[in-house]
C-alpha cells in the first residue's frame, strides 16, 4: 500500500507483526494495519507473519528502498528484546538506526488481554499511533565512541583484589594495584585455616 | 542526626499513617495497608517526636 506523503518529506512505514498467533490470535492485525494507514505521514503499511524473521526483515529493507521510507515503526514485541534487531535491519537498508521505533503489541497487549479482542485491538491501535507520533519526530543520532586507556586500577589488596589483579595481568593487561596497608593480604592473611578445605590461608 | 515523626497518606487507598523519619534517610515508602508506593508526605506531624 502506498499513498503520497502529506508532509515535507516525512515517509513513515509501519510493519505490523502477527507473531504467528501470538499477536494475531488476539489482536485484529488487519484492522490495526488499516488504521495505521490513516495516521499522519504513514506512506506504507505491511503486515508480516514474523517481522523479526529473515523474510520479515527483508520486507522492511525492501519497503525502505521501494517507498523511500525515512521512519520505520515496527509494531511487534518489546523493544527490550528486538530493538537491536530492527535497528540493525534498518541500518542495513541505509537508514540511521535511531529512525526506528517499536510498538509493543505482544507483551503489553495480546498476551495480557487474551479474553477481550475488541479492547486489545483498540489498545494496539493506540500503541501504533503513539509509536508513529514519536517516529515522526525521531532524528538520526550518532553514537559516540570513546577510547579506553588500556590499564586497570584495582583498589584493595585482599584476596579479591589480588585475584582480580592477577587475572587481569594474566590476560595481558597493565594493572595498578592499590593497598592502604604496608602489605597486601587483607583479612584473609590473618586467618589460620579456611573452610571448607581446612587449608592455610597463606 | 535528627529524627522527626512524619505523617503520610497513601494516595491509593487513603490510609494515613505516621513514621519516624531520619534526617538523611533514603528509604522507599510503601503503604502498610495496601503496599502502594503512592505515599504522600503530609505537611505537619501530628505531634512532635520524642
Amino acid at each position, binding site marked *: 500500500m502506498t499513498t503520497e506523503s502529506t508532509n*515535507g518529506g516525512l515517509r513513515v512505514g509501519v510493519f505490523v507483526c502477527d507473531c504467528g498467533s501470538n499477536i494475531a490470535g488476539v489482536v485484529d492485525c488487519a484492522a490495526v494495519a488499516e488504521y495505521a494507514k490513516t495516521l499522519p505521514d504513514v506512506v506504507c503499511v505491511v503486515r508480516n507473519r514474523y517481522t523479526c524473521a529473515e523474510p520479515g526483515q527483508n520486507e522492511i529493507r525492501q519497503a525502505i528502498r521501494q517507498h523511500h521510507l*525515512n521512519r520505520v515503526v515496527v509494531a511487534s514485541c*518489546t*523493544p*527490550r528484546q528486538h530493538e537491536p534487531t530492527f535497528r540493525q535491519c534498518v541500518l542495513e537498508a541505509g537508514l*540511521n538506526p535511531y*529512525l526506528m521505533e517499536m510498538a*509493543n503489541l505482544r*507483551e*503489553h*497487549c495480546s498476551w*495480557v488481554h487474551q479474553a477481550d479482542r475488541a479492547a486489545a485491538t483498540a489498545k494496539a491501535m*493506540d500503541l501504533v*499511533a*503513539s509509536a508513529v*507520533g514519536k517516529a515522526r*519526530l525521531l*532524528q*538520526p*543520532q*550518532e*553514537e*559516540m*565512541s*570513546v577510547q*579506553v*586507556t*588500556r590499564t*586497570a*586500577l*584495582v*583498589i*584493595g589488596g*585482599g*584476596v*579479591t*583484589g*589480588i*585475584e*582480580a*589483579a592477577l587475572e*587481569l595481568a594474566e*590476560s595481558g*593487561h597493565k594493572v595498578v594495584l592499590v593497598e592502604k596497608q604496608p*602489605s597486601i*593480604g*587483607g583479612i*584473609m592473611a590473618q586467618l*589460620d*585455616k*579456611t*573452610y*571448607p578445605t581446612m587449608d592455610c590461608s597463606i | 542526626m535528627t529524627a522527626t515523626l512524619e505523617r503520610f497518606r497513601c*494516595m491509593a487507598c487513603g490510609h494515613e499513617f505516621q513514621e519516624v523519619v531520619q534526617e538523611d534517610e*533514603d*528509604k*522507599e515508602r510503601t503503604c502498610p495497608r495496601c503496599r502502594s508506593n*503512592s*505515599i*504522600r508526605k503530609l505537611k505537619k506531624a501530628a505531634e512532635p517526636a520524642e
Partner: protein
Amino acid sequence: MGNFTVTIRKKARYVDPGLCNACAECAKVCPVVTPDEYQMGLSSRRAIYIPFPQAVPSSYVLDMEHCLGNNPVACGKCAEACEKKAISFDDRDQIVTREVGTVVVAIGAEVYDPTEMDDYGYTRFENVITSMEFERLICAGGPTEGHFVRPSDQRQPKRIGFVQCVGSRNPRMGRPWCSNICCMNTVKDTLLLADHYPDTRSVVFYQDIRAFGKSFEDMFQRSKEAGVRYVRGLPGEIHEDPRTHHLIVTVENTTSGKLERHELDMVVLSVGLQPPADLRKISSLLTLSKTSDGFFMEAHPKLRPVDAPTRGVYFAGMCESPKDIKDSVCQAGAAASRAGALLNAGKVTIEAITSRIDEAACTSCGVCVRVCPFGAIQWTKGTPAVVVEAMCAGCGSCAAQCKPGAITMRHFTDEQIVAQVRATLAQRPEEKVFVFACNWCSYAGADMAGISRMQYPASNRVVRTMCSARVSEEMVLEAFRCGAPVVLVSGCHYADCHYINANRQTVKRVQSMWAKLEKAGVRPERLQLEWISAAEGQKFAKVMRQLDELRRTVTPEEIERSRKAFKPKVRRAAAEAATAAPVPGTAT
C-alpha cells in the same frame, strides 16, 4: 567512561623495599613496643616491623606514629643496625598519577567490634574473645605458636562456647544483614578444636546454621559427629565467676523451650562483617551507590552482579556484600573478565540517548548539576552548563528539571514524549489509564506480566522512558490536558534504580505535583506512583487492575476540569512547530 585519572598517595615506608632483606636486625634494636595489629593485639611488635612473615612486599616498614623520632633524630638505632642502609628517615609520601581505563573496586569489609554489646562482656571478661582473635590463638604463626590457651591464665580451655550472629541479623542494632561467613567459620573452628584438642567440648549458640555452600553441610555434620553441641538460642547475657574466670552463659534453648545454664572456660563471639569505613569515600569518588545495609550496589542484582552503575567500574568481594573466599575469588574473576573485555575492546560506543544542553537557552541556574546522579554536568556559575557525554547515562533527570527547557534528551525528547501522549489520548481518553514506565524495571515488569500471561484490563497505555526521573511535570500535565482520568508514573525500586538514585527526583516531583493538582482543584489521587521491578509482573497487573477501578471513579466533570486547569507552557508552541516541520531523516 574508559578514561580515569587516578591520584594515588604512595605512603612513605622509610625502608627501601628494594634494599631490605628482612634480616630483622632493625627490630631487634628498636626500643618501641606497641600492640601488633596482625595478631589482634594479642602480642606486640616494634615501631619498625614486618606486618607478617609472608608480607608482600617482603620488607620492614617504619611506623612513624610510634617511632621515637627522626627529626631531630632521637633514636636512629635501626638505621645504625641496618647493614643494607635501607632505612631513611627522610622518606616522604609521594603523589603518583596514573591513567586507567577501568576500575575494580575490591575494598573488602571490616570485622565488627563487639565492644558496644556490653551484655557479652567482651571488654570486661578476658576469656571472652572474638572469632578473629580465635584465628590468631589457634594459628601456629600466632602469638602462642598455636598453643590454644585462654587469656586469663594461659591454660588450655576445655569448655568453649561460640556465640553466633554477634553484630549480624540484628535489626535493633541497625545491622539486619547476615554476614554470610560466620556460621561456617564457627563450624570450622569447632573442627579445628576437635582435631587439635580431642578433650575439648564445644557448644555453639545460634539462631540458624546456614550451611548452604558446596560441602558445607558435610562439614556441619562432621562437627556434630565430633560431639559439638548446637544449641538453638542466643544468650542474653554472659557472666564471669571472678574467682575462676569461668564464664556463665544463660540461654533459652528455643528448640526445647528450656532455660539452660552453661559454665564455660572461654567464649568466642562469632563477629559479623560491616561495610569498610572507606566505602563512603570511594563511593563519592566514583559516584557509586549503596544498598540499605551500606554495602555497594551492583548495576543489576542478578544479571550484572559485578558491574557498578557507573560504567567501567566493577565490584568484587566483600565490599558488595559479606562473602567467603571462594565467592570472593569467583567475583574477582568475574570483575577481571568484565574489566578485561572493556580493555580488549579498546573503545566503547555509547548509546545516543545522552543529554545535550542548548547553550543559548541555558540560564546557568545549576539545577541540572544538582540532580545529575553521575556528576556528568560541568558548570561554573554564570556560564552555560555542559554535559560530559562519556559520563552521561541518559536518565533524563536534568531535562525533566530544566525550567528553561534548554536540555534535550536525544531519542527521548520532550517533544517526542509529548507527541506520544497526544497520539495515545487522541480518542476516548476518558477510558484510558496513562502510564509512564521506566525502561529497566516497570516497562520490563509489564513485559514480565505479558510473558507470564497475567491478564489485566486493557485500559492502560504505556509510554517508555529510560528512567522515571525523565517524566517531567509538563508530560504529566499534558496527559491531563488531553483528558486522561488517571496517570501513573512508575519506576524501579529504590535499590534497583539504574541511574544510581535518579528516581528520588521522581518522588520529589510527584510530591510537588500532588500539591499542584490539589491547588488546581484536581483530585491528586489521579496521579499515582509505583515502583515495579522487572520481576514484578504480578504487581504490574495488580496495579493496572486497581488503576482501572480508579479511572472509573473519575467523572466527566473532573476530566473537564483537569483538561483546562493547567495552562500549557510556551514550549508547547515549540513542540507544535517541531511537529509541523520535521527534519527529514537520512534515508539513502
